[in-house]
């Protein structure tokens, strides 16, 4: 018992080890959370863009309307011009 060497104080290394383990795990969980949040934001933005593109297409198609005969349309414009004169 008298010849036994005292247990060395290595608690500083132990604390450093556990701190690093928790920091690395914490950073990974944080990165998962941030990537998830950013992807959800991207998803929402892309869905909005997709909807607005679809709406714009629908409006432009509605504005075109049913095709009228070319002759009648051109005649109308001529009369308007003549009235202006």
């Amino acid at each position: 018992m008298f010849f036994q060497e005292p247990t060395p104080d290595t608690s500083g290394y132990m604390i450093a080890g556990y701190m690093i383990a928790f920091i690395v795990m914490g950073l990974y969980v944080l990165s998962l959370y941030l990537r998830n949040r950013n992807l959800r934001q991207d998803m929402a933005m892309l869905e909005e863009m997709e909807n607005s593109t679809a709406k714009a297409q629908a409006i432009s198609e509605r504005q075109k309307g049913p095709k009228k005969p070319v002759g009648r349309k051109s005649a109308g414009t001529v009369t308007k011009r003549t009235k202006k004169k």
Partner: protein
Amino acid sequence: MQPKPVALKVLDIISISLLGIATYLALVFAPTELVMGDVQRVFYFHIGTAWTALLGFILAAVFSVIYLITKDLKWDRLQVAAIEVSLVFFLITIALGSIWARPVWNTWWTWDPRLTTAAITELIYIAYFMLRQGIDDPDRRARFGAVYALIGGLSAPITFFAIRLFRTIHPVVISGSNPEGQGSFSMTPDMRVAFFFALFTFTVIFIDLFWNRIRLGSLQDKVEQLKLKVTM
């Protein structure tokens, strides 16, 4: 995107609770090792993270084989998730080992077979993500990734058996002994409790993070598909 399943939320809470208990067992419950002192306590987390990381790398190799057979991108997502979580765990393993080595071996690092194979394994999987970053086509990326992960998977058993096959100073604490190992110790019953609980805890944490990472991967794929749809 579907909301987070209740089972996953429960698993998140269980993982955090288990981590708390494992930390208590390692730092308070387990007795102090007489020769090395408190630094021996990093051993519980060192082995716990190493076990799950190597298991994850082997799992990824299995997913690679399944992907190469089925060509289903679902298996690619699983492979990436397994490798990413394992990479983080293995980084912790190496860091803890290095910290333990400083007072016990009197050096932060030595090119011992176990340490060398561990460092190579970590670098192989860092390079895996660099390879994937460089390929835009999802099918090509998955195919290259699968072949790479399959070959890289060989490094996991080599790392595990390095202390049993080569002359090394790394101690063999479980199932075997290494006469040249510096820092060997025999576990008391209380140490065994802390040790096996840490193994169980890190397995559960791995499953939890793996599941979360798979969900992130499927969200990434959806965003990529939607981007293509909008730009076309």
